[in-house]
Structure formats: C-alpha cells, structure tokens
C-alpha cells in the first residue's frame, strides 16, 4: 500500500538550490491542500522556513498552476518554485 499513500514534491530554481532538494516522496494525509503541505514543509526550519516567508512561492499540482487551497492526494505531483523569469 506504500505507493498508494505518497505524493511527489518538486522544487525548482532558487528553491531547489537553497533547500538542496530536487524532489521528495512524502506520505500524504487525507483532506490535504497544497498550502497545508507548504506549511508542513516550512516547519522543518532552516532554509525550509522561507516556504512561508516574505518571498512568494508558486504552486503547481500535476503540472498545472494551483493555489494554496487546491486539494492534493496520493499519486499527485506537487511543485513549489519562485515566480518565473523566462523569455
């Protein structure tokens, strides 16, 4: 049952570098949102605290732009990253 109760979290750009983490596989609680996951990760402290800091953090769920109240569940891919700067 392990695969069925996890999700993947990905980080990009400055966040990827400062957290020194490209991706995590985490167990997921029922009735969770992307914003709750962000808050939980920020509680790790250190560099992780910036996830709920002054700098905006963008959220994508399954490669689509999402909001803090977007529901997430097992098997989802959740990404956190700074505002985009391509082009």
């Amino acid at each position, binding site marked *: 049952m392990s695969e069925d109760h996890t999700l993947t979290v990905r980080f*990009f*750009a400055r966040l990827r570098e400062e957290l020194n983490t490209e991706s995590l596989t985490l167990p997921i609680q029922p009735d969770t949102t992307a914003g709750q996951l962000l808050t939980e990760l920020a509680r790790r402290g250190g560099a992780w605290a910036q996830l709920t800091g002054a700098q*905006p953090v963008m959220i994508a769920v399954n*490669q689509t732009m999402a909001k803090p109240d977007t529901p997430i569940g097992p098997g989802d891919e959740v*990404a956190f990253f700074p*505002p*985009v*700067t*391509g082009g």
Partner: protein
Amino acid sequence: MNYSISVQQDDFDTAAEYQAMRDSGPGTGAIATFTGLVRDSGDLQGVNGLFLEHYPGMTEQVIESLIAEAAGRWDVRKARVVHRVGELALCDQIVFVGVCSAHRGDAFAACAFIMDALKTSAPFWKKELSGSSEHWVEQKASDLARHPGVLKP
C-alpha cells in the same frame, strides 16, 4: 490553426523558422516575430552568460495554452515558440516567437501576447552569470503589469 513548440538546449535557426511561417498558404499577409537574446546587463551588470532551468512537461503545456488563448482572441494561422534551456553565452538566442496571420494587427498582438504571457506564466527560471558571481533573476513588476495574475497564487 497550426502551432509548434520546442524547448531545447540547442540553438535555433530563425531563417528556417521564418521560412516555415511563409509556407502557411496564400491567406497569410503578415508575419510577426520576436527573438530574445542574452544581453550584457540585467539585474547584474557585466553579464556574460545565463543558466536557464525549466519544468519539463509543464512548460510545454503552459505554452500550448497561451497559444490557444491567443488563437481565440486574434486571427492566428500559425504560431511557433522555441525556448532554450541550459547554459547560454552573451549574445546567444534565448527565445523565438513567430505568428502569422491574415492581418498585421493580429500578428503583432498575438506575438506580443504570447511573449508577454510566457514571461509571467511559463515555468522557466533564469540565473545571470557575471564573472564569478551568479544571481537568480527576479520577476519584474513591469512584466506582471503587462500580463497579470496567471501565476499569482
């Protein structure tokens, strides 16, 4: 409406891209193109290169939806977006957007819209390299003002 998107490390050939735009039939009266280049000053001065990161898979989906939005608002016969990732040197080409249309107003508007929206919505991140220092570029308020909201949580 015909479109194509490439996200790649390799350089692109604007002459070939232009030719593909021209080969869009006798109803095409206008081709607007935009090319972005690595320039010597951004957030830092004396920039001599960039590193470009992206979110594979999501990038293409976002650009596809921007092209579809443009095609809903203007007459777009063909649209093309090429965006490079990885390490780029000063003066290198970064991005190409080409739109062909029956009319020039539509070609200009759709090309500028796709380019502006790409800058605020497509998951690319640019790091400026200058001598031994490097700096993740920050999103400009002026970019958000042009195409607000798509990425705001």
